[in-house]
């Protein structure tokens, strides 16, 4: 049993790694053998070389995009949690405002982004705002659900002890909501990055404020496909790191008590 468990742990890392090696080797082989020009499909080795050669430019752009995504994620978390706390204060507030949260969610960001960019003078602020609009919904809806999903018995217990509204919120509702909140945060981390990239595409900001999306746009126009691929690799990596970070935070805060993060013994 223990051996099987360790076996599956190794497999979980080894299997996807093997897939990556096979795909990369096949890709390299196909491009080399068929002499596919780099402006159509660059080989993995060429992408790696470009990544190294353009590292100053690309890492600067990565920092810009990541900065926007992280700022947006932080703001979405703050505002989303505040909205959820407001919603659980009364059914009336929730009924009046929740439809607008949904409206915000279902309207594609590409269609709102141009307006935001026109209205908000500071470009960086506009980009952050776009990403917040995309990322906030899962935080609001999950946290609201969590704040409401409280054990009935515990609620009775708090009533019996004549707990104040504040005590019930802080000692019961907030801890009960944490697993739900982290679920929302996990989704929002990916959405914040997507929002940042989409907004950059629409804004097309170059110069010092150029993010990875702008590099992709520009590389596409210049047919610098290796650089386009290199930028893509960086965006994907950034997304994975962001996701892994939220998973780690969730595990750190819940592993002691919540089923979702318990390691099987």
């Amino acid at each position, binding site marked *: 049993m223990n051996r099987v468990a360790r076996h599956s742990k190794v497999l979980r890392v080894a299997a996807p790694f093997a897939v990556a090696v096979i795909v990369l080797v096949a890709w390299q082989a196909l491009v080399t053998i068929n002499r596919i020009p780099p402006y159509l499909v660059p080989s993995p080795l060429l992408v790696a070389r470009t990544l190294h050669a353009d590292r100053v430019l690309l890492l600067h752009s990565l920092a810009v995009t990541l900065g926007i995504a992280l700022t947006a994620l932080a703001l979405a978390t703050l505002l989303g949690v505040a909205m959820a706390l407001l919603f659980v204060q009364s059914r009336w507030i929730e009924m009046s405002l929740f439809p607008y949260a949904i409206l915000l969610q279902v309207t594609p960001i590409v269609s709102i982004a141009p307006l935001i960019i026109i209205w908000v003078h500071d470009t960086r602020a506009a980009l952050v705002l776009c990403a917040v609009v995309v990322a906030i919904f899962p935080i609001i809806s999950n946290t609201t659900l969590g704040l409401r999903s409280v054990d009935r018995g515990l609620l009775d*217990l708090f009533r019996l*002890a004549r707990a104040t509204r504040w005590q019930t919120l802080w*000692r019961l509702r907030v801890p009960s909501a944490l697993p739900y909140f982290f679920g929302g945060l996990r989704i929002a981390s990916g959405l914040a990055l997507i929002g940042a990239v989409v907004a950059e595409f629409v804004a097309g900001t170059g110069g010092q404020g150029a993010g990875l999306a702008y590099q992709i746009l520009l590389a596409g126009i210049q047919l610098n496909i290796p650089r386009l691929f290199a930028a893509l690799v960086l965006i994907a990596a950034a997304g994975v790191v962001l996701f892994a970070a939220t998973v780690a935070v969730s595990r750190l805060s819940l592993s002691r008590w919540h089923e979702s993060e318990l390691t099987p013994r």
Partner: protein
Amino acid sequence: MSASHATNAASAAPVAALRGVAKTYDNGTRALAAIDLDVRRGEFLTLVGPSGCGKSTLLHLLAGLTEPSAGRIAWWDDEAFAATGGRGRRIAFVFQAPTLMPWATVAKNVRLPLDLAGMPRAAADAAVASALARVGLATAARHLPRELSGGMQMRASIARALVTEPDLLLMDEPFGALDEFTRQRLDSELLSLWTAQRFTVVFVTHSIQEAVFLSTRVAVMAAHPGRLLDTWPVEEPFPRGDAFRLSPAFAAYAQRLSTSVAQASADALPDSDLR
């Protein structure tokens, strides 16, 4: 000391007096038809009856968690209660499930009622330690609920109820989910706590054996609508041990209660099929 307490108890006013108390829920379910019942100070009253007889509703009414649709409940301290702005009445509730906060240690769970009441830290710590010792959980104070067995979780739940030194302890089938062996052991432990302190208990159970073993008085209830059929005392001295469980007197009480509950189950009002 407990003897003088008991004599006082006989003369004292009831802990809760129900007069014509009925409960109909918003969806029209008649959970409880008019009930008259005194909960006497220091007694161990057990409510027995078929499902749907309103046992749990009655417990929630006694706790003040539910408002009666008709009738009136007078608690022992109604005047003092008003004078102290509601701080005076101490009622504890033990649910069917342990109902512990999964994120907090056993000690923090037990402390909860004291924290909510704003008791100073040192006094609360002492009360928690004493409550944990009484239920045999002193060594588990720093564990999380999920690290404990079902029986130990239930003990933590009982410690949380006892920590406030309640005047009235309400228990809603607290050991119903446990295996028979654990249930009997917890019954014995609960009874020795009660024998030592003589707090007032209203206990709901489905088990005839449990009712006879624990109670000073049994109340038999019937369903559709929930109502009180009969109450009668179990006149067996304390402490009660395993010898009582095996005695002819126990068998006789169990027989009587069993017959009574069987009647209660059969004795539904004519409109029951419509509900």
